[in-house]
């Protein structure tokens, strides 16, 4: 079992670094998770993270990357709903890396 330290509090993660308890997630936790991924969080990153958390709240799943891309395009505009934009923000995979920072489980079907 692994864990990360967020503002003096320990949070458990699985062996790939995903938070075990998504209710523990805070913006500070996102910053710690992002730092471990070498992602420097900007407003554009937060926009995607917040979108993912809202998606999970509504549907109880982390979306596959194709679905994420389409849904982002619909909500935030076509200039953001494409893989190039999302991979620039999250180079190791928008679904995988952004979900981890958002405190969500690994997306179903994520390879």
């Amino acid at each position, binding site marked *: 079992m692994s864990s990360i330290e967020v503002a003096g509090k320990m949070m458990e993660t699985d062996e790939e670094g995903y938070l075990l308890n998504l209710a523990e997630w805070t913006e500070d936790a996102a910053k710690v998770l992002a730092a471990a991924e070498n992602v420097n969080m900007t407003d554009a990153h937060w926009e995607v993270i917040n979108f993912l958390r809202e998606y999970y709240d*509504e*549907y*109880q*799943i982390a*979306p*596959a990357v194709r*679905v994420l891309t389409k849904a982002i395009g619909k909500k935030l505009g076509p200039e953001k709903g494409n893989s190039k934009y999302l991979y620039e923000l999250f180079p190791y995979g928008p679904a995988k890396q952004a979900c981890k920072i958002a405190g969500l489980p690994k997306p*179903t*079907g994520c390879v």
Partner: protein
Amino acid sequence: MATKKMLYLNRRAPYGSVYALESLEVVLIGAAFEQDVSLAFIDDGVFQLLKGQNTAAVGMKNFSPTYKALGDYDVRKIFVEKESLDARGLNRDDLLDLTYEDENEGYAEKDSIQVVSRADMAGIIEQNDVVFSF
């Protein structure tokens, strides 16, 4: 790779066994690989699509909101057997509202659920290349 027509046949109640959730997860994975996916709900499987599920008392995650994501995954064909609904005192209004957006008609929201007779359901099963039974 040629696209195959895949039907996921669901005949068990949503909780009490892992079949319903496992089926849904396989559907989402299969759909992510752009297969031609249909879902069928027969017998106690129709309970999977009930509105207003509350799983607090059984201590399981209520995964019914996830069916609403199927439209995002381009799963647009969800068949429910009428005889199974009738036998359980249910009708279409007791089921979730599941929709998809039709890109050929200005992204109009359309109903994904079709209630079909047992005879029609047999024909639907026959038309598919692969049937997964859960």
